[in-house]
């Protein structure tokens, strides 16, 4: 569907024409884009924060789950005492309204969940998507029909609704982060599968694949030598676009109360309780919102950069802005 293609930036890199790009060239082109570089740095920082969460909270001297009743005003229903949501030397970013739990600690632990689920779900999507797409592209007519129709349905279904519904039948003891990864990942592989199938079908018809057949190469050898190297670029590009979507996915489910369960903290879940506090304590809304925004933006910009680096021509045709392109060249 061309609508879908336009949204995802088109089917990238039709094999025949794109110039050969070694990993080193890609890296150089990626590095030359300031925005993408900034995105990468932000993400690296977030990863460090997430990994070092116990260390950072220890440094602050707090933990994410201790209630501090003395820090909230019970007369107003639990508004934090002090300006900006109770910011102080002990509580760097203030405390949670109602409970008085340390916000900084909850935010850095929230980064763990956010990144873990997003990356995990993306890996599931890539694995399933590439598998299904290759099978559909290389398999016989019947298999292709079956898998393509399934892919169409997967793409059409609003994944959030179905992910929520799936939560209903999972035993309560199942680890939630893993469940979220699977729920998002198993519903979101349609895009990759469709791109991989389309590319495989195009590639299969190219003369150089015919030449490889004539040269006596078997199907396995052809897939490995001729198809996979070319498929890497579109898959990586698309996966880079899925990452920010999955960050939002996890946040959405936790926001709805069907994501990670208390006391585990997650940005989306914090926002969910923030809906009742936005009047009294706007800081409580803005902190997790800001983090989600920065994370998603960083991933998006990096994804855009990766696309440009992997296929400069297709990207320049379809990119969002022309401004960044010029930066990239200078």
């Amino acid at each position, binding site marked *: 569907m061309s609508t879908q293609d336009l949204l995802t930036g088109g089917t990238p890199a039709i094999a025949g024409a794109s110039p050969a790009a070694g990993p080193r060239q890609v890296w150089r082109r990626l590095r030359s884009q300031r925005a993408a570089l900034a995105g990468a740095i932000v993400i690296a920082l977030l990863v460090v924060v997430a990994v070092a969460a116990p260390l950072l909270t220890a440094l602050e001297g707090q933990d994410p789950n201790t209630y501090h009743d003395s820090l909230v005003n019970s007369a107003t229903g639990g508004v934090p005492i002090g300006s900006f949501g109770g910011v102080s030397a002990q509580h760097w970013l203030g405390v949670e309204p109602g409970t008085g739990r340390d916000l900084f600690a909850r935010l850095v632990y929230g980064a763990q969940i956010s990144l873990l689920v997003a990356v995990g779900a993306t890996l599931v999507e890539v694995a399933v998507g590439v598998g299904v797409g290759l099978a559909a592209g290389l398999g016989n007519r019947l298999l292709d029909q079956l898998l393509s129709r399934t892919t169409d349905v997967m793409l059409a279904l609003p994944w959030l609704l179905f992910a929520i519904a799936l939560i209903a039948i999972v035993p309560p003891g199942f680890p939630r982060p893993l469940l979220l990864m699977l729920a998002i990942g198993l519903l979101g592989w349609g895009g990759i599968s469709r791109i991989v199938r389309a590319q495989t079908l195009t590639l299969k018809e190219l003369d150089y694949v015919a*030449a490889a057949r004539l*040269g*006596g190469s078997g199907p396995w050898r052809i897939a490995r030598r001729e198809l996979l190297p070319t498929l890497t670029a579109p898959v990586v590009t698309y996966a880079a676009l899925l990452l920010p979507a999955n960050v939002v996915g996890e946040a959405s489910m936790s926001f709805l109360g069907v994501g990670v369960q208390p006391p585990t903290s997650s940005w989306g879940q914090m926002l969910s309780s923030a809906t009742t506090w936005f009047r009294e304590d706007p800081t409580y809304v803005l902190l997790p919102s800001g983090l989600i925004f920065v994370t998603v933006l960083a991933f998006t910009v990096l994804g855009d950069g990766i696309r440009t680096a992997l296929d400069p021509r297709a990207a320049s045709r379809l990119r969002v802005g022309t401004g960044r392109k010029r930066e990239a060249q200078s």
Partner: protein
Amino acid sequence: MSAQPQAEPLVEVSGLTVEFPVGDGVVKAVDGLDFTLGAGQALGIVGESGSGKSATAFSLLGMHRGTGARIGGSVRVAGVDPRTAEGDELTRLRGGLAAMVFQDPLSALDPYYAIGDQIAEVYRVHTKATRRAARARAVQALDRVGIPDAARRSRSRPHEFSGGMRQRALIAMALVCEPRLIIADEPTTALDVTVQAQILDLLHEVRTENGTGLILVTHDLGVIAGSVDDVLVMKDGRAVERGTVAEVLGAPRERYTRALVDAVPRVDAAPPPRAAPGREVLLEADGLRHTFGRRGAAVTAVDDVSLTVGRGETIGIVGESGSGKTTLGRMLVRLVEPSAGRIRYEGREIGRLREKELRPLRRELQMVFQDPVSSLNPRRSIGESIADPLRAAGERDEKRIAARVGELLERVGLDPDWYHRYPHEFSGGQRQRVGIARALAPGPKLIVCDEPVSALDVTTQSHVVELLGELQRDLGLSLVFIAHDLAVVRQVSDRVAVMRAGRIVEEGTADQVYGAPQHPYTKGLLAAVPVLDPEESAARRESRLASA
């Protein structure tokens, strides 16, 4: 139209330069070009790809404005300077004074609107006519260019027209405002030879009837012979030679022009005599058929074709697009499985073999492809591509592989040290040589060449054809040479088969088919082939018009 003094030429170009910024530097597409064109005259601009001929044509309409290209020198078209004209004057220049006919008629029209509406739109931009009047004018123009039932057909969208009809529609669009100049940029390159002849005849007719000037830009010397008065030969942005068409084509003064003229394959000149091949049959096809699609929508691409290829023989297969020649070629090497019929290779039936059973035979049946871009994997070095058949055959000794690839590269006229280079570093002709080296690697007995030179410039074309002929002689190969170009096929073939709509309509030795064609289709094809001699070309046009 304002009263121009008769003395002023229609087009006056002097010291024209066109520069495109590329990366840090600039590429000079046109470098100091002068020419003039009188009212009602026709000029052919000829050159190979990259000669700057299209950039020149575009600059006449100021099409480079807003693209970053820099234009130097002076250009005047009917008194208007396309580099500075603004507003109404620019609009009048584009379409009113000079109209352009583009190369690919499918992409040159908006797929969403009816053809008549698109022509009417152009007319309205220039005349402020009412919608209805413009529409009537469009139908009239379509009728003028020979679209049958123009009123009804004007409501069709571009994809519902055939290639030739679309090109006629584009010419109708050019005519609608009665311009004084038509600029045609490779107007027939995408068309079959018979349709090409019709379009050239139409342009000629329009010119003689309306007194319109014509600039015909093309890479094909045959196209200009009967269509223009003067010729300008371009190379690397400069004029190499100019003169009347008879002078330039008949007695070229410059070496480059002579090489260009000599490289044009002649359909009427018998090629040098070839050693008669033995009559030992290598490959025999019997009643081959191939059907695409299913049931209702089924299309029979190849329909009951029988053919034999002798050892060391070259057989040419000629046909226009859609004749099924490519599918036939792919069936012969078993890239495509025949829907019906038999293929016997060295006496063994291979038409029904499965992929696994075919693999040992693959090395003996190879193919050279048409598109030098898509036939090489852009992500693998050319050496790896050539070495692939060797590795697939189980060769593991890297030294031996490298030596053999070097040998092959040298054999096809490339530097043996280019093993690690990538396809994009090569020109079209060089890539085609790589493709030939890859086909030679497993030591084949038969090579099917599917339009091996149609994507190449004419001088490159003749070199690749020479190489194929040489290899065939030296290695005793059998060749199946598939092409739409009758002249190229004649140069290399011992025997020729003419295909149309999936069937072979005529088959015989090259001399028989070209010298005394039996089938009316073959006769029509041969009559439509452009010839270099302007007088001969005019005579042929007369006979075409008389028989139509």
